[in-house]
């Protein structure tokens, strides 16, 4: 059974159809890349799945249960965690406190929550920074902190919104490895990204959207050959 199913998911903002009749499935254990030109509706799709906005029409099923229109915190409790494209750390709290807060969802006692948080910080390579204020981290570290915080809620499905935006090539390589490691631990990932090279290397499958509509779906190799995708990114060939 699919872990996540979108069925005809549509969102209007006034007259604008930001996401239109979006339908795709996500299988357990895969890394699904979600790509498309700027303004294609990728982040809106994420916000819909994560419960930050409710769909105008269409349905979202997670493990067979309809979650469309559910509040964000309830979606997180079901096992879907997200990161934000523009990082939103708890700036005036320490890195450890940031992740501990998220770990409280599964570990109500502070000590256990802190232990879980420390384990996750080690995994994303932020142990050395655990006592720093989140607001003092570099962008690359804040992006990792976002992932750590999402992981601390022990999700089944992780939504990563441009985890590599603004990173340099070395940092991108590190982030790619991290995404792979997370997936190997049994967490399914949907990933929005502009860094196409990274997404093509890491993703099992790719869904391409443009103007809120799905225009292609398949393995990375299939998708890059797709004429519609090339048109969406580069424009149509002159005749």
């Amino acid at each position: 059974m699919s872990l996540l199913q979108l069925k005809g998911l549509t969102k209007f903002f006034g007259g604008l159809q930001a996401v239109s009749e979006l339908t795709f499935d996500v299988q357990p254990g895969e890394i699904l890349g979600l790509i498309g030109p700027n303004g294609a509706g990728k982040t809106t799709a994420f916000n819909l799945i994560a419960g930050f906005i409710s769909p105008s029409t269409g349905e979202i099923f997670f493990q067979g249960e309809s979650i469309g229109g559910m509040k964000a915190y309830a979606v997180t409790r079901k096992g879907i965690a997200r990161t934000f494209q523009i990082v939103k750390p708890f700036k005036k709290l320490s890195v450890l406190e940031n992740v501990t807060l998220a770990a409280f969802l599964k570990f109500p006692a502070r000590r256990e929550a802190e232990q879980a948080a420390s384990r996750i910080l080690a995994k994303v390579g932020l142990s050395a920074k655990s006592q720093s204020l989140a607001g003092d981290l570099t962008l690359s570290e804040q992006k990792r902190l976002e992932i750590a915080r999402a992981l601390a809620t022990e999700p089944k499905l992780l939504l990563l919104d441009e985890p590599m935006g603004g990173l340099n090539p070395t940092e991108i390589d590190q982030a790619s490895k991290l995404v792979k490691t997370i997936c190997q631990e049994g967490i399914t990932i949907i990933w929005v990204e502009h860094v196409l090279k990274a997404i093509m290397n890491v993703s099992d499958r790719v869904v391409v959207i443009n103007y809120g509509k799905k225009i292609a779906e398949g393995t990375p190799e299939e998708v890059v050959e797709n004429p519609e995708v090339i048109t969406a990114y580069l424009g149509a060939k002159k005749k």
Partner: protein
Amino acid sequence: MKKLILAGLIILLLAAPWIIAKPFFVHLMIMVLMWTVLGASWNLLGGFTGQVSFGHATFLGAGAYTMMILYLKCGLDPWYGILIGGLVAALIALPIGYICFRLRGPYFALSTLAVAEIIRLVALNWESLTAGPVGLLITTLPKVSFGGQAINWESKTPFFYIAVVITLAALWATAVISRSRLGAYLLAVREDIDSAEAVGINTVQVRVAAFSLSAFFAGLAGGFYAMYLRYIDPDAVFSIALSVEMVFIAVVGGLTTVAGPLIGAIFLVTLGETFRERFLVGHLIFYGFFMMLSIRYMPEGIWGKVRNWFTKSPNTGN
């Protein structure tokens, strides 16, 4: 070591009315303690949760009127009345919270101001319950004895000890909450509501819980205030000035700290009460002045500043 210092301070506090037996000094300490509770109440919401309320007098008034009405109409002893006053304030906060927390930031602050004015006007006009602008008056407090000795309500000392109990309860609750999961969730809400939702926190519920807890302590202080002064009217307990003073004390003392409200109250109330004899509301000028100084030169408040000298830890949780 910390515990020893704390125990020493509490013993010193308990002995204070004997060390300096002047009635004005005891009165001053009572006011400091009462304002500590009000500052701590505001700190839970404004400091930890980052939700600014300009209407906390609502809860002070609710506690005061609850205690008064229960005593005058039902003959319920004031100490139970104070406790029930706190509970009534906490209950009133629930619907207000659920409505006002749909708004964020400044809009929430403005809505609390509006609610406080509505409640003040209700209290002013619901004459069958509150006697309106005439106010409510207690002529005698019930006879009780403690350790075989009748308590003399004409002396200020018994009120001092009631105030000590309420204050310690409020500060202890702040300390416990700041280390708990709830305390961490409050900080998350203060820092970023979207991120808090993303890690599974029901931010409306958490904010309402903080609001209600905060209201509980304001209600306790209100019930105590009514018992101590033995007279209340709507303008005395529902006025905006009271709401604003709570903000001053919490901010000047140090937001998100346990001892901050106590420090803020010692500092501001002492000044205020000293000058009150000369100008009736002159103390507000000083409050405003120190508020400005504090915001400009130490936004973390007096206690926050002192604490920073001792620790370099970034943790704001305790």
